[in-house]
C-alpha cells in the first residue's frame, strides 16, 4: 500500500526538486520520512530518475547517520547519551534495555517490535536521563522503571 503511494511520490518528489541544486539529500529525507529507511529499490529508481550513479547515492546514505538502510522496528526507542544524560548515567539505561530486549544499540528485536538507538541531546537536559519511545519523551528515568515503560508498549499490542 504505502509503497504504491511512494512510487507516485517519488516521481513527484524528483519533479519538485529536479531543478534545485544539491537536491539529493533533501529527496532522501523525504524517502526516509515515509519508510523510516531508504530501501534499495528506491535508491535504484532514484538513480534512474535523477540520472546520478547508484554509488553516489549510497555514498551519501552511508555518510550520514540519519539515513538507514534497514527498516526500523515498530517502536523506536531512543536513549539520549548527550552530555547531561551521560553524566546522569544514561549508560545504565542502555545496558538495561539491551538486557531486556536482547539487542544492541542500532538493532531491532527479532519480532520487529523495538528498535534501539542511542541519540544525542534531545533538548530536555533538565530531565536527564531522558529516553524517547516514538514521539513520547520519558524524563528522569530510573533503571528499574525501564521494564514497566517497555512493557506498556507490548501490552498495547495485545
Amino acid at each position, binding site marked *: 500500500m504505502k509503497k504504491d503511494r511512494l512510487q507516485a511520490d517519488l516521481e513527484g518528489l524528483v519533479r519538485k526538486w529536479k531543478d534545485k541544486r544539491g537536491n539529493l539529500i533533501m529527496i532522501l529525507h523525504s524517502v526516509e520520512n515515509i519508510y523510516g529507511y531508504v530501501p534499495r529499490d528506491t535508491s535504484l529508481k532514484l538513480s534512474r530518475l535523477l540520472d546520478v550513479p547508484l554509488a553516489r547515492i549510497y555514498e551519501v546514505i552511508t555518510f550520514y547517520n540519519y539515513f538507514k538502510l534497514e527498516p526500523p522496528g515498530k517502536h523506536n526507542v531512543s536513549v539520549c547519551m548527550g552530555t547531561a544524560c551521560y553524566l546522569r548515567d544514561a549508560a545504565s539505561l542502555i545496558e538495561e534495555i539491551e538486557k531486556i530486549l536482547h539487542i544492541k544499540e542500532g538493532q531491532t528485536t527479532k519480532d520487529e517490535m523495538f528498535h534501539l538507538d542511542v541519540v*544525542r541531546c534531545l*533538548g530536555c*537536559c533538565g*530531565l536527564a536521563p531522558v529516553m524517547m519511545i516514538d514521539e513520547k519523551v520519558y524524563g528522569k528515568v530510573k533503571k528499574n522503571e525501564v521494564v514497566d515503560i517497555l512493557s506498556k508498549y507490548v501490552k498495547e499490542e495485545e
Partner: protein
Amino acid sequence: MEKKIIYLRDTDSAQQDRINDFFTLFSNELRDTNLIEQVQLVKIADIGLYEKGVTVKILPENIVYIGIKNNDVKKIIEETIKNNKIIKELLYEKKSKQIRAVLKNCGYIDPESMEDYIAAGGYKALVKVLTEMKPENVIDELKKSGLRGRGGAGYPTWMKWNFARGMNSLEKYVICNGDEGDPGAYMDRSVLEGDPHSVLEGMIIAGYTIGSSKGFFYIRAEYPLAVERVQKAIDQAAAAGLLGSNILGSNFNFELEIRLGAGAFVCGEETALIASIEGKRGTPHPRPPYPSVKGLWDKPTIINNVETLANIPQLIAGGGAKFASIGTEKSKGTKVFALTGKVKNSGLVEVPMGITLREIIFDIGGGILGNRDIKAIQTGGPSGGVIPREFLDTPVDYENLGKLGSIMGSGGMIAIDDTDCLVDLAKFYLKFCVDESCGKCAPCRLGGYQLLRILEKISEGNGELEDLNKLKKISYAMQKASLCGLGQSASNPVFSTIKYFEEEYRQHIVNKRCLAGKCKALVYFKILPQKCKKCGLCMKNCPSNAILGSREAGYVIDPQKCIKCGACFDICKFKAVMKE
C-alpha cells in the same frame, strides 16, 4: 477584563499525567468562577525553568508561580486572575544576573505569529537597514558593536561580512548554521523554535549587506519543530513582502530556503556544511580559500551561527555602541549557555560576557546538586576543555576561556562534581569525535582512535605511566596536523583533563582505582558489616550470585564473581554497600 493566558508546565517531568490533572483543576475553577471566556489555558513544552514543580506563567503580566499544589489553584484564580494580586509565596523571583537579549522573545511571544514578533519590535531593524542604511553603514555598526561569532571560534562578524561584501560576484550566499552539534546543548534549537523571525531578520540584513539574494538555513533534521517553525516564518515573511523581490521598495531581492542536516557532527564545520548543502558527503576542505571567497557552489558565502544572526536585529535597532556597552574589552554582548550537568537548575541561561563562572553556576544555576563539591566546569562540548574549580572566578569571555585551555564554544556548559570521573568524561567526548570523524585525514582518523584505545586501556586498569606521555604527544599531533576543526580540537578534552587532573589519571594508572566509581574495572564493591542489617536483599538481587552469606552470619561480596553491576549498591536501603 483584559484577556489573560495561563501557561502550564510540569517542570519535574515530561510526562503529561500531573499537568493534565492541573489543567482540569484550572479549567474547572475558571468555569466555576465564570472566567473561562477571559482566560486561555495552554500546556507548553518549555517554560524556561526546570525542577521547580508545577509551574504557571500568567500573561500579559508575566507572573511566574512555581511549586504549585492542588489547593493553590483556587487562590491563584481568586487573587491573581481576578484581583491582580501577586501571591508572594509562590512567586518565582527572576535571577537578575541574566540579561535577555537574544532570548528576549523566547517563551514570551507566539513563535508562529509574525504579528507577535512585529509587536515586540521585530523587523524594525530590517526597515531601518533598507530605508536608511547602506551596506557599509551596517558593517560600521557591526564593527562598533564588537559582535563575534557565537558558533565557536569567535571570529568578528563585521570582518566576515566585509570580506564577502568586497567580493565581486553576482552570486553570493548567506548560510545560517543550525547544525548544533555539541551533544549536550540546545541554545540554537531554542532560538529557532522560540523566535524564528529574529534569525530570519538577521539573515535578510546579512543578505542586503554582502549583496546576496539567496540564503540557506541548514538545520538538523533531528529538530523537526525548528524546521517547521522556520518554514512557517519564511512563508509568512514572503507573504508580507519581507522576502522576495524588491523588498520594501528597496530594489533588494532575497529568498530563503531550508536544507536539512542528516546527523553528522562534522557538517557543523563550514566547508563540510557547504558540501552537504551541495548534496554531497560532508567532508571538509582545506582553507584557504575561505568560504567568503569561494564557498557554496564556489561563490562567496558567509556562514553564521543561529545566535550570531539572532543578535543582529537588536544590534541594528539599538545601535552598535549600545550593544558594546555590555561585556568585556574584547567580547561584547551576551551569550546563551545550556547549563547542565550537576547543577540544581539546569536550563538555558543568557548572561552578559564577563560574568564569572561562579556566578553562572551558583547564583543562576543554584549550585551543585545535593550540595556536593564542584570539581570542574566543561565548556565547548567535544571541542572544548575542562576548567578546574580554582578558576571559578574567571570572567567568561573568548580570551579567558581560551587561556585556560577551553573554548567559549557554542554554549554548552557542564558542571562536574566529585562523583564524576574525568578520565571517563574525556573518553565520552573522544568517543563522540571518533564516531564523527569523517575519516578524510589521517591525524584525526588514526590519532583519535589511538587516543581512545589508550583511554580505554587506562579505564580498564591496564594503563601504564608512559601512556600519559603518549596521550599528550598524540593530542599535540592532532591539534597541529588535522585538516579541520574537528580533528584539531578533538583532543582538547583529553589535553585539558590531563593538564589539570593528572593526579586522577595516576589514580587510575598506578593505584588502579576510580574514586568516582565510573570506571567499572577500577571499582570494588564491599559490604560494611557495621552498617549491614542482614536483610539479604542484595543477595537476592545480585545477577551473578556474587554475594555470599546468610541472615545470621551476614553477607560478603566475592570479588571474583562480582561483575560490578552495582545492583547491590542501588538496592541496599541502609547504605551498607560501598564503592572503593
